[in-house]
């Protein structure tokens, strides 16, 4: 009943493997690396010659839109898209409808994902009741009964600093990691684009960099005071990165991620009101983009996420400021990350660790590595294959992406979940 991946180039950053090696999989686990174990009977053989074999990608933020917004996506449609993108684990923020502030909703989402069978789905529980920032949610219940791997107030920052402090203290006592969206809503209110040259030219209400940095500064002070383990999600500005990197250097238990699109787009890409470039936090400047890429290379940003937000077509069919923010991003996560290699800032192995091992660590999951006995969640991709992003080829229900027409390099050919093939590309 075994599966044999032969001739591939294995990259497993957790075990410092970066060489040609076969993988042998049985009962959902990696049973051997290199030489075929005795008595192993390969029922399926995947010839991965010329391809990279690595742990399945772990995505720290993906909205599946179910429950609540099934016209934009379902757990089945979006996890299927994830599999096509080589992603085997997705972390869902709590702003579903209903909100994940009771264990039942967390269980519902995870059960539906299990039935769909395309990817592991883990959840973040709400930090405050109904994400309103007033009363603490039952974090401990969410964790122990609901199985939530962390907590977050999603895109609704807690305005009251005292409540934030208490929430952090309580989370710390539960041993929960808090996932933060750094946004001072007073500064960002009404904005839809980075406050700068482009917002000024187009007359768009701006979101200043300080909307992020002021929030980062407050949260860092509270993290220091409360000792909570914290993770900053989808950062956008060079200044924020600098502040958090300094805190890391000082020994604070903080990590951070960046959405893949922030590494490739700036506010210039808005052009004349391209609503596909309406994202939150907003696309910022070339200087910010360069600093984000550099921080990924250096490792202070330890994860790249998709920040997947699929939409129905109507959500983007309006004047820029009236459209809904977000990109359908699961299927472009890997190739967009691979583009960082063009600038030779980091090695392929380091890059893969930012997509696998390190996000798994942030979530506290024993995933993202392929040692003997590891869960056989695997991504196999052709690093040289070129392909064009086209809406008709996307599996996500949301076709909203500014990358339509972009040529990507690097194509997933197989995705394995628990040792089962959940995605296999058509032969090119």
């Amino acid at each position, binding site marked *: 009943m075994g599966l044999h991946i032969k001739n591939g180039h294995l990259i497993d950053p957790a075990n410092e493997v970066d060489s040609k090696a076969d993988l042998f999989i049985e009962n959902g686990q990696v049973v051997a690396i290199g030489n075929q174990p005795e008595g192993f009977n390969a029922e399926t053989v995947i010839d991965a010659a010329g391809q990279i074999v690595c742990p399945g990608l772990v995505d720290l933020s993906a909205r599946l839109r179910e429950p609540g917004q099934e016209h934009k996506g379902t757990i089945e449609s979006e996890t299927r898209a994830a599999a096509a993108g080589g992603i085997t684990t997705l972390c869902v923020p709590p702003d579903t409808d209903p909100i994940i502030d009771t264990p039942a909703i967390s269980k519902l989402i995870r059960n539906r994902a299990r039935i769909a069978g395309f990817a592991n789905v883990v959840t973040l529980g709400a930090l405050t009741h109904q994400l309103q920032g007033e009363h603490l949610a039952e974090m401990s219940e969410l964790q122990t009964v609901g199985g939530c791997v962390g907590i977050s107030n999603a895109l609704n920052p807690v305005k009251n600093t005292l409540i934030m402090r208490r929430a952090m203290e309580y989370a710390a006592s539960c041993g929960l990691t808090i996932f933060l969206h750094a946004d001072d809503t007073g500064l960002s209110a009404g904005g839809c684009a980075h406050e700068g*040259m482009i*917002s*000024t030219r187009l007359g*768009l209400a*701006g979101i200043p960099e300080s909307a992020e940095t002021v929030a980062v500064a407050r949260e860092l002070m509270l993290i220091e005071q409360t000792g909570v383990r914290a993770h900053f999600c989808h950062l956008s500005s060079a200044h924020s990165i600098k502040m958090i990197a300094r805190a890391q250097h000082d020994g604070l238990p903080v990590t951070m991620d960046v959405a893949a699109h922030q590494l490739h787009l700036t506010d*210039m890409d808005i052009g*004349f009101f391209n609503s596909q470039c309406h994202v939150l936090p907003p696309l910022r400047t070339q200087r910010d983009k360069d600093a984000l890429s550099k921080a990924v290379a250096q490792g202070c940003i330890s994860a790249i996420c998709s920040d997947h937000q699929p939409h129905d077509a109507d959500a983007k069919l309006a*004047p820029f400021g009236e459209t809904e923010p977000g990109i359908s991003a699961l299927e472009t996560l890997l190739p967009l990350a691979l583009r960082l290699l063009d600038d030779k800032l980091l090695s392929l192995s380091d890059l893969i660790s930012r997509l696998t091992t390190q996000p798994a660590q942030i979530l506290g999951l024993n995933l993202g590595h392929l040692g003997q006995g590891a869960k056989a969640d695997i991504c196999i991709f052709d690093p040289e294959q070129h392909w064009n992003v086209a809406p008709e080829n996307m599996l996500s229900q949301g076709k909203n992406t500014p990358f339509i027409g972009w040529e990507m390099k690097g194509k997933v050919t197989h995705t394995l979940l628990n040792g089962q093939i959940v995605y296999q590309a058509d032969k090119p």
Partner: protein
Amino acid sequence: MIRKDIQFDKKGRLRHFLTTEGISRPLITDILDYAENFASVVNKPVKKAPLLRGKTIANLFFEASTRTRTTFELAAKRLSADVININIQTSATKKGESLLDMLRNLEAMHTDMFIVRHMTSGAAHFIAEHVAPHISVINAGDGSHAHPTQAMLDMFTIRRHKPDFTALRVAIVGDIMHSRVARSQIHALNILGVPDVRVIGPHTLIPPHVENMGVHVFHQVEQGLRDADVIIMLRLQRERMQGALLPSEAEYFANYGLTPDKLALAKPDAIVMHPGPINRGVEIDSTVADGPQSVILEQVTNGLAVRMAIMAMVLGRTSDEEVAS
């Protein structure tokens, strides 16, 4: 990815008029020259020209505006077009019918041109991107982004008094942040080669990096107005007083209101402009607004000729022969 300028058709002729950004100096000059012809038509006893006979123009006003809508309506009628006025309550589109559905309905009525006023920046571009190929869109003001016909009538007015743009110092005073008029003027003035365009206002009303649009920023009105040839006062919306942008109308007037004393800092033959409607005692003193250097009412008159010229040019694309006859 910056897409190609949708204002022009394949032959490079003006198809929509959405912004003054990125248009050429010869095109602006053409529009102004063409408008001179209509300025004379306006003064004739029979004020109509048959250029747009048989054309249907829809005024789509998502934001209330009597003056701008009226001048567009009059301009269209003087060109012998049929005009329909549609005032759309913002709530109606938000609740039920989408903007695109409404456009499809109007297209089905065989309209040739939409004049669009909308409170959201980018609305005119959005509509121009989605209309049927035979329809032209003229931006009559979108959010804080652009008001290109106003800017063109301002250029027309300036040129009548100061023919050489390359020797001018133009000062724009007031709420630059929220002003679509200022943005369109700044682009047009730069394209026309004005060497010194100044914006003057408190920091709270000056958008960040506005220098990149080709202006010099002043926070002190006394410095900014010095030796100006043209002073453009912007309207200050009363709702700006409610936030933290300004402490009071009185303080704004004391610092930035155009009084005879401040006007004296400019060149003696400086002209004073305002896109209207004016707030007397808020941004401008009555003695200045009604004084000899004010060209504010001329602007209103010129607005008609300039809008006729733009409509005729845009719709004339498809009826060159008629224009020739």
